[in-house]
């Protein structure tokens, strides 16, 4: 599970460089996220614009990552494609995250 990281102003942008976050990679995703958010203090925006498919394990891994954020850091999501957006809405997890149409929106 490859994540790439950059900064825009005070925000850490973490991009998922994979087309799927599913049961096969959910644990790897959680581990990679834990490492990626360990340093720094600002808000984190998870860029999902490459992710075409997510299942309930992948969703659970994103929720777990949010819960494991270091004190004072928030996790927001950006760039959800239709299949991913559908899973968030159907499970009502769209209500516990701030969702942005794109990384640019998240930073404006």
């Amino acid at each position, binding site marked *: 599970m490859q994540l790439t990281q950059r900064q825009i102003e005070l925000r850490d942008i973490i991009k998922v460089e994979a087309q799927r976050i599913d*049961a096969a990679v959910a644990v790897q995703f959680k581990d990679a996220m834990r490492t990626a958010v360990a340093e720094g203090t600002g808000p984190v925006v998870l860029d999902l614009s490459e992710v075409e498919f997510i*299942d309930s394990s992948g969703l659970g891994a994103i929720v777990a990552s949010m819960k494991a954020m270091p004190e004072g850091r928030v996790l927001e999501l950006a760039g959800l494609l239709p299949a991913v957006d559908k899973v968030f809405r*159907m499970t009502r997890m769209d209500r516990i995250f701030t969702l942005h149409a794109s990384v640019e929106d998240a930073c404006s």
Partner: protein
Amino acid sequence: MNKWDQNDPPGALRFERRIDSTSTAVSVLLCDLRNELQAANHRAGSSDTWEIVLAEAINNVVEHAYMEHAGHPVALKLVFSPVLLTAEMTDWGLPMPNLTLPEGTAPEIGETAEDQPEGGFGWHLIKALTEQLEYKRQDSTNKLLFSVKID
């Protein structure tokens, strides 16, 4: 006569697959199906719902019926008509608790981050996205029969 024995509707694509009981095999199968549907210009090639339901149903077998043990088969018979996926899934693992499908109610949203649910979404998604859904325990096998609209 069950749905599977009827003649396929016009424009249908039929797949019979048997995969190993691992989450990686599920991923590979789903990507493979999507590629074949797209190559055949089938409507399901650009639809998401069937893939969500199949992923949840098969991973449920991997995680619960086979308790994450690899090396067991999951057999699938899938008919993709232009408007509906009809699926029959068989495994040789543990039966459903009480020999019945879980209720599939959505997990409660917590008041704080710590309270948020990390699981329990799978059956909720399956129930919400299927047209028909039936579970049978038959001769030491589990059978799940379901259909999903191609939206």
